[in-house]
């Protein structure tokens, strides 16, 4: 019997665990370790953040799903991995610390034959003094944060109903933050809700971003076929913002927040501050900061993980200038570069470099987005990692028949821009591949025929449809595996 342990029950880890169990059956053990008792469909947190969905609508309890599937669930945090075991235990193991009520703080050793790290991002609010829902800004990164954000937004809307002017500052809260797409859709949703209440004359909505040009979204921007032209996403994004009455500050690295005031440096080296009544700024992301030790108990964290805490995999991490970046630098099977029985999926794997061109201000501050890894590739990677582990367990071979490089995968990003069955709309953007491949597509970096950028009601329906479809799939209900990631 083989034992597979999956760390993290997010989009990637949960997908991996479900497929592992489906293909491995009862003969093998699948264990999942995750601190949250709920699964959350993160993309719908935007709607929680504007009061159009309750947290209960975007989450469900994991334990019953895992029980039905025969997956062992440990509500705990993984704290360290020991791929060589130690002087007493010969097999690889992971040390976990329970967060489950009644077991809080209890430590346990979970031995494994294969490990999947799907621990996603750590929200590094501390990386920007004053940032975060416990201090002066809001967040929509989790359903709790989004619910808290809605409370503050509701208070701002009430003030406007009483004739008070409000300034909304939405965007990135760190010079190298990513996930611009989520912040962008939150800005659009706020504008939509303000206008719906006929309060637009009392609002100043500002988009602040570390992107060199708007529409970069951490993927170096893209080109889309639109209205007889090949148009950069810069034009598309600026158009949407102008239409929604949102002005913008770009090339901005927010480095500090105080009550009602954000401080930022522009790429030209100048320092500025801006006042706000309500701010939602995405923090920098890091890995889960899991430690790694060898058999002798020596700390090998820097061998297994990148400095940002994400796990090193089959990528080319050799530092090289932007001009020499290649699609082949990106991983395709997500296998640890040190231990071949460990894999990282979703946001947990360390990318070889960013996709956006790196820029540094005259003061030495790096101001550009780190690469995003959206839900779709995270799910696909989870599935492919599971399929390869199943193959290895069933055949005893070490090859990997399945692969999912982000230089081959496409991504669809549906940016909600207002909720309502007939009045809602969303900007639907697809890019293929996610990571530009300038060797294969010298003109635009991507397959221009696969790249789409359209705005309309259909996008809103799609986002809503995906909300129900992916929650259905995540609950492992009848036919779940037929639904693509």
């Amino acid at each position, binding site marked *: 019997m083989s034992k597979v342990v999956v760390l993290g029950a997010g989009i990637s880890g949960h997908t991996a665990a479900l497929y592992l169990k489906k293909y491995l059956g009862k003969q093998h053990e699948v264990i999942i370790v995750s601190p949250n008792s709920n699964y959350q469909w993160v993309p719908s947190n935007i709607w929680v953040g504007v009061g159009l969905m309750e947290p209960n609508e975007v989450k469900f309890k994991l334990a019953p799903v895992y029980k039905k599937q025969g997956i062992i669930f440990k509500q705990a945090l993984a704290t360290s991995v020991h791929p060589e075991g130690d002087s007493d235990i010969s097999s690889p193991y992971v040390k976990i610390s329970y967060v489950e009520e009644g077991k809080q703080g209890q430590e346990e050793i979970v031995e494994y034959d294969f490990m999947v790290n799907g621990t996603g991002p750590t929200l590094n609010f501390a990386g920007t003094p004053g940032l975060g829902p416990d201090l002066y800004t809001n967040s929509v990164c989790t359903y709790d944060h989004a619910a808290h954000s809605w409370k503050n937004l509701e208070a701002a809307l009430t003030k406007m109903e009483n004739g008070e002017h409000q300034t909304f500052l939405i965007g990135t809260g760190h010079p190298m933050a990513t996930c611009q797409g989520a912040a962008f859709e939150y800005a659009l949703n706020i504008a939509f809700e303000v*206008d719906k209440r006929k309060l*637009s*004359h009392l*609002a*100043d*909505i500002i988009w602040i971003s570390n992107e060199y040009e708007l529409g970069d979204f951490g993927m170096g921007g893209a080109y889309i076929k639109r209205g007889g032209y090949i148009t950069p996403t810069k*034009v598309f994004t*600026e*158009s949407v*913002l*102008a*239409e*929604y*009455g*949102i*002005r*913008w500050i770009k090339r901005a690295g927010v480095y500090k927040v105080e009550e009602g005031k954000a401080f930022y440096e522009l790429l030209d080296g100048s320092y500025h501050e801006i006042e706000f009544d309500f701010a939602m700024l995405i923090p920098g992301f890091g890995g889960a900061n899991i430690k790694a030790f060898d058999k002798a108990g020596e700390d090998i964290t820097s061998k297994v993980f990148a400095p940002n805490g994400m796990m090193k995999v089959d990528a080319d991490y050799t530092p090289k200038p932007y001009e020499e970046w290649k699609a082949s630098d990106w991983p395709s099977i997500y296998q640890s570069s040190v231990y071949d029985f460990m894999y990282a999926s979703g946001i947990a794997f360390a990318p070889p470099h960013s996709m956006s061109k790196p820029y540094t201000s005259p003061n030495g501050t790096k101001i550009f987005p780190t690469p995003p890894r959206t839900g*779709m*590739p995270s799910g*696909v990677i989870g*599935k*492919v990692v599971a399929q390869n582990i199943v193959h290895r367990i069933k055949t005893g071979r070490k090859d990997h*028949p*399945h*692969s*999912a490089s982000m230089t*081959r*995968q*496409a991504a*669809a990003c549906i940016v909600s821009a207002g909720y309502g069955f*007939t*009045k809602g*709309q969303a900007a*639907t953007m*697809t890019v*293929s*591949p996610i990571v530009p491949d300038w060797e294969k597509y010298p003109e635009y970096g991507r397959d221009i025929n*696969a790249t*789409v950028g*359209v*705005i*309309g*009601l*259909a*996008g809103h*329906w*799609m986002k809503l*449809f995906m909300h129900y479809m992916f929650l259905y799939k995540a609950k492992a209900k009848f036919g779940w595996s037929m639904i*693509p*990631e």
Partner: protein
Amino acid sequence: MPQIHERLANKPYAEYAYATRPRKITLFWRRCLIKQLYMFFKLNLKVMMMVVKGHD
């Protein structure tokens, strides 16, 4: 949603004044139920095909 939002109107030299803006007909098509129903199926199919083709 107006073509140029009232919050940003009357500022001809501001950066956002250079952004492209949708025409009335574009705004109409974005909410036209028949066109959007067609787009819904078209885009879903496109996305599904992309997911399936993106890995082996």
